[in-house]
């Protein structure tokens, strides 16, 4: 398969601090590529390098066949980018923001109105075209930012925590748009701290301290990262139980998922013990990506 993004030993240092450490990635066309990792693990730095606005300290990378270091400007017409920081013009209206980016991407005048209409439709912004961005709520702003970054119909879209701080309904709406774009052939690389969003990705890379520590499909990650048996325990006061269970000898890990406890047992035969100990139902479950995330983050640190 021809990859649209490839990096080889991509590295970025800031002073003595290595933000990205010999990263090897390959992203296939049309994928929703989830880029996960703890805060400060180098996700944004990597994305900025891939967008050609930050020079690698070592290693190399190609986006759409263009070299990151020497051909950054050739990449730019073909990519869309949404940074973590909200980056629209507050003092322009929804339409004016879209129009500005349409101009910056040199979309011919006769096509502009049509294209902007498409974006407004796609990002569910209808009815607010003449509103100043300053008056929009966060969820709307993020959808507009997305609209602006895809106004030139890029073949790759880089999204850096696009759904941070927006409500569950807005998040759902946002990801539905991303899935639609991916279905139409756009490659999407997205970072997120929401594991239900990670579930929607077709491929996931997990980085920690700048290094790639896992890269697979969500299914594979769920089935392979955890060693042991994961069970779900429903107890009345999960927080209190958490501390107790963590200290049991046969419990490898214990974490809270909403009101449920996820407990990683050494072996299936310990389920009965746990059932007796907690006096509650104990059911084996397929690990969620959240379990995977926490296990990976802990393992890498430990």
């Amino acid at each position, binding site marked *: 398969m021809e990859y649209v993004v490839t990096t080889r030993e991509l590295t970025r240092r800031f002073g003595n601090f290595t933000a990205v450490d010999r990263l090897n990635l390959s992203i296939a066309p049309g994928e929703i590529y989830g880029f996960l*990792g*703890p*805060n*400060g693990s180098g996700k944004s730095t990597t994305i900025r390098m891939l967008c050609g606005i930050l020079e690698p300290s070592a290693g190399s990378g190609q986006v759409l066949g263009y070299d990151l270091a020497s051909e950054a400007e050739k990449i730019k017409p073909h990519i869309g980018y949404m940074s*973590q920081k909200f980056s629209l013009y507050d003092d322009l209206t929804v339409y004016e923001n879209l129009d500005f980016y349409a101009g910056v991407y040199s979309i011919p005048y006769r096509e502009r109105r049509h294209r902007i209409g498409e974006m407004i439709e796609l990002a569910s912004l209808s009815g607010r075209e003449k509103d100043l961005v300053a008056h929009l*709520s*966060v*969820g*709307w702003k993020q959808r507009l930012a997305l609209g602006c970054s895809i106004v030139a119909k890029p073949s790759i879209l880089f999204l850096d*925590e696009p759904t*941070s*701080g*927006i*409500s*569950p*309904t*807005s998040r*759902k709406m946002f990801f*539905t748009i991303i*899935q*639609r774009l991916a*279905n139409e052939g756009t490659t999407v690389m997205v970072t997120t*701290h929401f*594991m*239900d969003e990670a*579930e*929607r*990705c*077709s491929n996931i890379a997990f980085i920690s301290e700048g290094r790639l520590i896992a890269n697979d*499909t*969500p*299914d594979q990650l769920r089935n392979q990262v955890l060693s042991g048996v994961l069970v779900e325990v429903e107890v009345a006061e*999960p*927080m209190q139980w*958490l501390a107790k269970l963590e200290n049991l000898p046969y419990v490898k890990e214990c*974490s*809270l*998922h*909403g*009101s449920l406890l996820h407990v990683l047992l050494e072996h299936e035969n310990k389920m009965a013990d746990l059932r007796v100990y907690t006096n509650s139902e104990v059911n084996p479950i397929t690990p969620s990506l*959240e379990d995977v*995330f*926490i296990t990976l*983050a*802990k393992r890498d640190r430990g």
Partner: protein
Amino acid sequence: MIFTETLTKKFSSITAVAGVSLQVQQGDIFGLVGPDGAGKTTLIRMLCGLITPDSGSITMVDNAASGESSASFGYMPQKFSLYGDLTVMENINFFGAMYGLNGTIINQRADEILQITNLFRFKQRFADNLSGGMKQKLALTCALLARPRLLVLDEPTFGVDPESRKEFWKILYQLNQEGMTILVSTPYMDEAELCKRVGFMNNGRLVVVDSPKNMKSRYPYRILEIKCASRQPEIFQGLPEILESNFYGDKYRLVVQEAKIAEAAVVEFLQGRDIPLYRLKETKPTMEDVFVALAEKEVVEWSMSSQPVN
């Protein structure tokens, strides 16, 4: 601990908070949730005295406190509000001094709180060089310096990774165990599950207040989980009884009105297209489902049947 009566705040033509009557009991972990721009931050700022309400009243009662009213509540705002160019300890000393604490007490309490927040090792690090989760924990540390009886937090885990979020909530729970009352707003529904009571705000009004458990048991719809050979995100859209459909990589999650009819419709639909069905089962609603239902639909009937807002 906190009582408000018909609290209202307007910003020019927009009513940010409209007649909110809220009660937070001593020892509560009260979660405030709602869509973007529902008025959560405005409400919290009014409770902290940062915004003057247009009308209504706020009463803060502290049964255990001995009259140090100003020291009895700590506030952690939405934005990181510490000095990035000061070290962890320098920030703590500064905020301690703001509360009028002397050096010995600051050091003593800082050590204590930093142990809880796991920042002890990072005392000499510049706040700018902390990770997102650690920054939030430092902000929490500073809010805790005056030993408040009530802690008010506005989206404390904004942009924080899942593991750090869990750690943060463990700390909140520990504080609550020690007797602290907590009022927290959050966009994360798994965090809402952890609250003892949750208030759902929309358009400036407090729509429902209840325990997560009761909220979920009053959820008016059913949830179906489907695994099949399709990867088209919107394949089930428009089938009878299906209100909403979301695709998560390998499975679909449907919100349906009538489970039996919907199940039949799904099976028939898939058979008609020769798409193999691997699994179809009903699952329990989560707070996320509750949120979506409350936010998107005007479920008048549902909120009426719910326990009246006390």
